[in-house]
Every structure is written in structure tokens, then in C-alpha cells.
């Protein structure tokens, strides 16, 4: 029994000190208590709570304070979506429209088999590091590097690295935009969730070179430009870009692309497909 006494003493001594300091802190807390607007904690509870920074403030606490001060809009929390906007609007007693739901799209299809490697890279496991070494190890210097810098910053676990490129799960993505800033190639872009026709390439090289770099590169052939009924797709700097404000999401540009680099996400979503078909009929456009 005697050999356990030192342990007992240690527990009692440290526990006693802990309780003593705890009591002192408890008294100090009462004495120095600051009145906090209860709406701040209510708003703080309503937001998504990922500290992602999509609202433009340092974190969820800072945003909640800014909302109560009246500096921030009630609909700035994109990860929270319409539910959060409604909750904040109720707390603050204001009317707020939910922002259009956004989703991050990785505009690249350069999987391992489509893009060849120029050299073997065995340095720091970081997209930024590898793209600094003579334009990166993959043959295409515009596409996804594949080291998952975006995956590491995603607070919601919406990004997966599949076959050398980042793939974002639309259902999980909250549209906070953290991955957009961190991508050294600028291939991730925030797009409206219903913008489901996407040019999945950023290759600005001229057609012949682009074709050699990747089997699904945009070669700037302008066939999509001619196919578009609303002139919303334009080839700029050798790569097709869709203007989301005028695009009707009809998908006419998808089948004409010889490189299969325009992707229609409707095909993965039958419900949205039906909506798109209805829209196309309304505008007298032939659906492919």
C-alpha cells in the first residue's frame, strides 16, 4: 500500500491545485463577465460552423458578430444554404433571399491515362511545389496536378482524388470556395449548381499541341460556338468558355465537341435532365 502513496499525493496535489485555480477562475468569470448580445450566439449556432471563410470574415464567430452589428448580410454563409439564411433572417428580423446555390467544379478531365508524364516527381507532396518545376510533371501545364491541395483544405470532405484528378461530390460541396483559392492552376471555379454544362478543360495551347498533351483537351475548334443557339459559348485564348448568365443549359454544345471535353452533368441527374428538356422545348431548341 505504501508504495502507492506518492501517486495518491500527486493526484491530490495536482487535483487540489486544479480545483483551487478553477474556483478562482469561476469568481473571476463572474467579476469580469461581459454582456454579450444573445443574438450573436444564436446566429453562431445557425451558421454551418466550418470556419471556412466563405463569408469573407475570419471565422464563424467573426461573421456572427458582423451580422448582429449589421455589417454583414444574412445570406453570406454559403455552406449553410437556404436553411441558415432563413434562420439568421428570423433571428435578426430581416428579409433575406438565399444566394443561388453554388458548387465548385474541377474543370479538368486529365486522368492518368489521358495525360502522360513529362518527368518523375518525387519532392514535396504539394500541387504548388510541383507546378513550380518547369510547369509541372504532367504533360498538360493547365490541368489538374493531382496532389490534392484542394482536398486538404476542404472542410466538408467533398473532394476525392480519383485517378489523378480531383473530383468534387456536388451533394456534399457547400460552395464555400476554399479550394478555388488554393489551386495553383485555377481550374476549380464556383459555378451555379444548375449550370450543369461545363467545359472541362482549361488548356490554352493551340489545337495540335493541346491534342498531344491530353486526349480530352479543348483544341479551340469553335464547333461548340457554332452549335450554341444563344451564343453563350466562346473560344477565348484557345479554350471554350461558357457565359453562365445567358447559357440555357440546353447541352447542344456537348455532342459536337470532338474531344469530349464539354460535359453535361444532367446525364448524371435524370431529374435535372427533365427540367433541361422542358426548358429546351420552351426555347425551341433541339435536345441532343
Amino acid at each position, binding site marked *: 500500500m505504501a508504495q502507492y502513496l506518492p501517486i495518491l*499525493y500527486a493526484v491530490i*496535489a495536482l487535483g487540489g*491545485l486544479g480545483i483551487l485555480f478553477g474556483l478562482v477562475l469561476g469568481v473571476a*468569470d463572474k467579476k469580469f463577465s461581459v454582456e454579450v448580445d444573445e443574438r450573436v450566439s444564436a446566429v453562431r449556432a445557425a451558421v454551418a460552423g466550418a470556419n471556412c471563410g466563405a463569408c469573407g470574415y475570419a471565422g464563424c464567430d467573426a461573421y456572427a458578430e458582423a451580422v448582429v452589428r449589421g455589417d454583414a448580410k444574412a445570406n453570406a454563409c454559403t455552406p449553410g444554404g437556404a436553411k441558415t439564411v432563413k434562420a439568421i433572417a428570423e433571428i435578426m428580423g430581416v428579409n433575406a433571399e438565399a444566394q443561388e446555390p453554388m458548387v465548385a467544379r474541377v474543370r479538368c478531365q486529365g486522368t492518368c491515362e489521358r495525360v502522360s508524364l513529362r518527368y518523375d516527381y518525387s519532392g514535396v507532396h504539394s500541387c504548388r511545389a510541383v507546378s513550380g518545376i518547369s510547369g509541372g510533371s504532367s504533360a498538360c501545364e493547365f490541368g489538374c496536378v493531382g496532389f490534392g491541395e484542394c482536398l486538404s483544405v476542404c472542410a466538408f470532405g467533398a473532394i476525392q482524388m480519383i485517378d489523378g484528378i480531383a473530383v468534387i461530390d456536388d451533394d456534399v460541396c457547400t460552395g464555400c470556395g476554399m479550394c478555388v483559392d488554393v489551386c495553383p492552376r485555377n481550374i476549380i471555379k464556383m459555378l451555379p449548381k444548375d449550370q450543369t454544362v461545363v467545359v472541362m478543360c482549361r488548356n490554352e495551347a493551340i489545337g495540335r499541341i493541346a491534342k498531344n498533351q491530353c486526349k480530352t483537351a479543348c483544341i479551340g475548334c469553335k464547333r461548340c460556338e457554332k452549335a450554341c443557339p444563344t451564343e453563350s459559348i466562346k473560344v477565348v485564348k484557345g479554350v471554350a468558355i461558357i457565359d453562365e448568365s445567358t447559357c440555357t443549359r440546353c447541352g447542344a454544345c456537348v455532342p459536337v465537341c470532338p474531344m469530349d471535353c464539354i460535359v453535361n452533368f444532367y446525364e448524371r441527374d435524370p431529374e435535372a435532365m427533365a427540367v433541361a428538356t422542358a426548358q429546351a422545348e420552351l426555347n425551341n431548341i433541339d435536345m441532343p
Partner: protein
Amino acid sequence: MNPIVKILLFMFSCVLTNNYIFSRFLGCCPFLGVSNKVETAFGMGLAVTFVMALASLFTYFVYYYVLIPLNLAYLNTIAFILVIASLVQVVEMFLKKSAPSLYSALGIYLPLITTNCAVLGVTILNISEGYNLLYSVLNGTFGALGFLVAIVLMAGVRERLESAKVTSPLKGFPISLVIAGLMSIAFLGFSNMFAGVM
């Protein structure tokens, strides 16, 4: 030697020759993190001074009247961290109440005083150097004043740097590290100042 002269020399040696940042290299995190503006640097310095002085006082009692009688001297690190953490909490509450602007300016660096190695360093040094109560508190107070001097000097330099032309690779943090090194070398000049008399 006259004890008062000895104490005065001890105070100066804490601030200049044994400066916690420039010669012991403790507490570099807030030194680089909160030295953007003289005002916040001064506030940080004062907060650290408060914590370090009181931590020296309390840890002295905790060590000699609780840990030593119970043969628990090996637990000093844990016990000291407990003391420091509680003190930092009190400082945080106090600042939140009385100086909210300083509180928000210090931000995360305020709770991080808990893990400021200069604070733990001073308490452990007090024990290992065998200082008595007076010298422990003096070491804490004036060691922290040395920290205050260092961080305010650094903040002054960095405020001037804002308008200086710095080559782009060195802009921002790198040049701050270079300056910290140069200031440390400058403080090396004090190193033998009291060697003959103490």
C-alpha cells in the same frame, strides 16, 4: 557587495544581458506574431509581464510549499502550466472586460501566452537557478520587461518597414526574421556587461 546594488544589477541583467528573446530565444512566437504595430506590441508586452510576474510568484509557492514537501518536484512542468493557464485566463477575462479593442487586436496570441515558452521558461529557470522569492519575482518581472522592450523595438522597426522598399522575395515575414537576427546580434553586445561584477 551592497545588496541593493546587487538587485539593481540583477534587474538590468534580466532586461539586457539575459533578454528572453535575444539571448535565450524563448517566446519568439508572439515576438514575431504581434509585432506589427507598436500599440498592440505594447499591450502584448504588458500582458506577458503581468502573467510572467504573477507566474513567478505563484509557482514559487506551488513548488516550495506543495511539490517539495510531497516529493513531487518532478511534476513541476505540469503544475506550472496549470498556474500559467489559469493566469492567462484571468488576463483574458480582464482584457475582454476593460480593453475590448486590445483584446480583439491581440486575437489568438492572447490565449497563446499559455504556451509562450518564455513564461514557462522563467518559472523553470527560477527553480533551476535556485532563486529565492524576491529574485524569482524580479526575474519574472524584469525578464518580461526585457520581452516588452524587445517586442516594442521590433514593432517600431516593422512599422518603418511598411514604407521601406524591400525586394520582393524578402517582403513581409522573411525580412522580419532577418531583422530579429540582427537585433539579437546587437544585444550580444550586452552579453559581458555585468560579468565582472556579478
